[in-house]
């Protein structure tokens, strides 16, 4: 089992967004989070990735097994594609980046400055970073934004290969990736209710 989330409550800017979220994700599985914009999917993923603290509830997972990819790709425009990728590989203690180059077909671009890439190419580079980290649990926030159909296919293949190798993925997305045996979790039912009177934050009311 990769991650076990129990009764998680998350907040952004002091306002509770989701309450009582529970799920488990086993190795070799992917879980797709769904829900309308602004409901708190990004906050949920950031909380799970350890970037912010939950209000309550448990996240049982190995911090060292996760890699997070958010809306921004963390790409330096003045560095070349290969320098960007090599940097992240080194940070995560890996050397081999060829697999990542192949998976997202960015080998022809390697010596271009990343600033000259198109939005879709940048996104592919950002996703290629996941492969060079060598970490089993992917936490992805809208990974397919600005990708064309072919690139979405590449991404789906990469996820499939990753799952086959015993990895897992937690993905917030609106599109259908065409993956088999993927669990879906609609977070809308967990939307935080109006707080009970007497609750600590409510002491302000």
């Amino acid at each position, binding site marked *: 089992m990769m991650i076990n989330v129990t009764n998680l409550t998350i907040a952004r800017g002091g306002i509770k967004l989701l309450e009582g979220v529970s799920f488990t994700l086993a190795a070799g599985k992917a879980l797709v989070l769904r829900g309308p914009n602004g409901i708190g999917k990004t906050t949920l993923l*950031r909380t799970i*990735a*350890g*970037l*912010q*603290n939950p209000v309550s509830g448990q996240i049982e997972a190995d911090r*060292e097994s*996760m*890699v*997070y*990819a*958010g*809306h*921004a*790709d*963390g*790409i*330096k425009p*003045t*560095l070349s594609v290969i*320098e960007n990728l*090599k*940097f*992240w590989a*080194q*940070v*995560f*203690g890996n050397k081999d980046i060829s697999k990542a180059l192949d998976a997202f077909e960015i080998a022809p671009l390697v010596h271009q400055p990343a600033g000259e890439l198109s939005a879709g190419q940048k996104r592919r580079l950002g996703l290629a*970073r996941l492969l060079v980290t060598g970490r089993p649990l992917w936490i992805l926030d809208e990974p397919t934004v600005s990708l064309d159909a072919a690139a979405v296919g590449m991404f789906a293949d990469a996820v499939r290969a990753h799952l086959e190798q015993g990895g897992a993925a937690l993905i917030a997305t609106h599109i259908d990736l065409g993956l088999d045996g993927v669990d879906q979790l609609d977070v809308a039912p967990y939307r935080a209710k109006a707080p009970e009177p007497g609750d600590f934050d409510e002491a302000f009311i």
Partner: protein
Amino acid sequence: MIALLQRDMRLAMRAGGGFGLGLSFFLIVVVLVPFGVGPQSALLGKIAPGILWLGALLACLLSLDRIFALDWEDGSLDLLATAPLPMEAIVSVKALAHWLTTGLPLILAAPLFGLLLNLPEAGYKPLILSLILGTPALSVIGTFGAALTVSLKRGGLLLSLLVLPLYVPTLIFGAEMARRGIAGQVATTPMLMLAGITCGVIALMPFASAAVLRVNLR
């Protein structure tokens, strides 16, 4: 960690401003001072250590908001925070990169600028030594300020407001050390204090910087 340092150095050089900008600013400060106080060599020689220290400090300040701002905007900071590096190591490496790109060039240029300001001959050694001992503290303290204001859209002015009072002890002991050296007095006390401050902030400040950075990433 080495990878992060390499990347930051490379970025500083590619962006073109890394080494050049702080240094040019330092030069401008040094050039403007004689216009402000008059061209008398004796007077300039007397205030030279103070001017050089102030110039170094301001040049340092100028480049502080670049430490985290770009990494914040493009999401690198989020990704680094989830990477296997502890936050304390990240801020230390950032401070080191800032010192290498700002503090070190200033130290190297200081003798030349001392010449412009008619710095007495006895002053070069203590001045350079005081800068070597003191500028790392400026970078480390500045990193704390940069981490504090990283989430603010226009944090530049606030950053200066927060960091400058924190620079007071470093500036006092640094400039005092150089002044005493010129006057031929024993400068051991300010030197030890300066070294103490630098060691202290290098050891302790990363924890504060990492803490505020984590708060800002939330």
